[in-house]
């Protein structure tokens, strides 16, 4: 017969542990939806801020407003690699190029390497990596203009004066993208309405001409500057420049195809799943036991 007092004590101890565990404050860290600057949670809505003239400080352009869509939260799975089309868009306008090109760059190189991570059990950047990725895509704030937001969650930068022919600072790309559809109707003359990430096209003249224009948002930005959005991915920091496991044979990035020794593509040789392996062993052991008539 079981000891009733011991049962009561055991259930009581488990109940106390449950209560103690319930009091532990768990805070789910969500770096992909929280603003790293102000800590506010993304609401999933586009935020349009029109700074006043005093807030703009410089220039008196035609009512520039800057839009940042908080709906464009960081989604690791949604990050795409810049395609050859977006890379070779030198003859197109910066606005169309920005609209066509995927936002941001993927620090894991080509999609084939991303699949390599996936094959190892990773579905994308981990939470800390995602936070770092997001930090790298943030634009530095410009002085007091950043404090103008009433929500504390928007980033406002000053427009460069069209009269002063100085190089345009890189537009803010705090959260990676501004869907053109959400901007088009928000404010007329908005530089963000052009589909760029807040590029002041309305006041900076024909910044949307060709690449190399001083008004281009990417002008003067070194390709390895982590604080600017890249149209072309920088060299993969995790692999040498001459190796792309996913590249087809003959591709310069492939060891086998270029000057490598292989002459073919790279093949991985993963093990079977651990359940298959252990099941095999367990069945083998049980087979031996039955053969010996021990079970």
């Amino acid at each position: 017969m079981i000891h009733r007092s011991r049962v009561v004590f055991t259930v009581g101890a488990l109940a106390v542990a449950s209560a103690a565990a319930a009091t532990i404050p768990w805070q789910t860290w969500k770096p992909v939806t929280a603003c790293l600057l102000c800590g506010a949670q993304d609401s999933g809505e586009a935020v349009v801020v029109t700074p006043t003239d005093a807030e703009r400080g410089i220039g008196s352009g035609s009512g520039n407003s800057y839009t940042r869509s908080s709906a464009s939260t960081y989604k690791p799975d949604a990050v795409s690699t810049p395609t050859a089309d977006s890379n070779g868009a030198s003859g197109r306008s910066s606005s169309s190029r920005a609209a066509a090109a995927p936002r941001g760059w993927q620090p894991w190189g080509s999609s084939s390497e991303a699949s390599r991570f996936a094959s190892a059990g990773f579905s994308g950047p981990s939470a800390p990596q995602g936070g770092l990725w997001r930090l790298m895509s943030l634009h530095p704030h410009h002085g007091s203009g950043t404090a103008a937001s009433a929500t504390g969650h928007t980033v406002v930068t000053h427009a460069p004066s069209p009269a002063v022919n100085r190089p345009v600072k890189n537009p803010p790309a705090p959260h990676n993208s501004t869907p053109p559809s959400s901007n088009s109707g928000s404010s007329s003359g908005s530089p963000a309405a052009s589909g760029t990430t807040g590029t002041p096209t309305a006041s900076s003249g024909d910044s949307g001409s060709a690449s190399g224009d001083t008004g281009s948002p990417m002008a003067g930005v070194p390709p390895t500057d982590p604080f600017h959005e890249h149209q072309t991915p920088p060299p993969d920091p995790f692999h040498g420049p001459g190796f792309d496991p996913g590249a087809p044979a003959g591709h310069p990035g492939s060891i086998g195809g270029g000057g490598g020794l292989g002459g073919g593509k790279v093949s991985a040789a993963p093990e079977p799943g651990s359940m298959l392996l252990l099941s095999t062993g367990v069945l083998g052991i049980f087979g031996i036991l039955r053969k010996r008539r021990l079970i």
Partner: protein
Amino acid sequence: MIPTLLVALSLAWLYGATLQGLLTEWVSSADASYGIVLVAVAFVVVWRRRELFSRAYDPHDNPIPGLVVLLAGLGLFLIGQLAADVFLTRISFVVAASGALWFLAGARATRTVASPLFFLLMAIPLPALVINAVTLPLQLVASRIGEATLMATGISVFRDGNLLELPSTTLEIADACSGLRSIVSLTAIGGLLAWSERSWPRRLALVAAGVPIAIVINGLRIMVTGLACELWSPRAAADPWHTISGWLTFVVSVMLLIQLQRALSTSKRATWDFDPVRA
């Protein structure tokens, strides 16, 4: 019956979320799916030993050791909760369940189900900290073994880190090829075999032998894959051939482990009918 059910429900209430996460990982991760098999084996062993458990049941046994283990398990659970350490929380389930069993049923009854509890402990996936620390060294070791054995067979190979460049193709010893799955699975099988042994040194030897056997066999598996790529086609490194070769090499590993147990056994007949109550 009702008191037992009450304790089981209390444990389930406390560890519901933990067990749910564990089940999700078993189902979703190929590295951890071996846990399902171990849990099934544990249930089978418990079922087969139910009579033995009933005979060994002693409610008037000294409660202090079981109480200490139970409280230690619950303390571990709270530490795991505070530290947000999933591994600690999962481990604490086995400790708390063992403590509750010991506290309620006595030491002898707990010993009859010690092997299923040990299998449950082994079914808990290794923490990511350990996996991340051992994966790369295992990859490099497997690459070196594959390189050496391929060169011994007369095939020219150039190793660049974890890449084996062969004349026809390049083999990448990726994370999933490190041999960790084989090590974990073979160690679990070693644990199953060890439970039929009486002496603890032999048990430990059987469990520990799984690691070197798995590492060497994984290197040989890579050699076989490279050999097949050269002699047949680079398609040998793709499905389904690499799965079949991996499975076959694991069967060889299990046979090696069984032979090792035979070699270690002093008597010809292994003590499969080991009775922990009598021991």
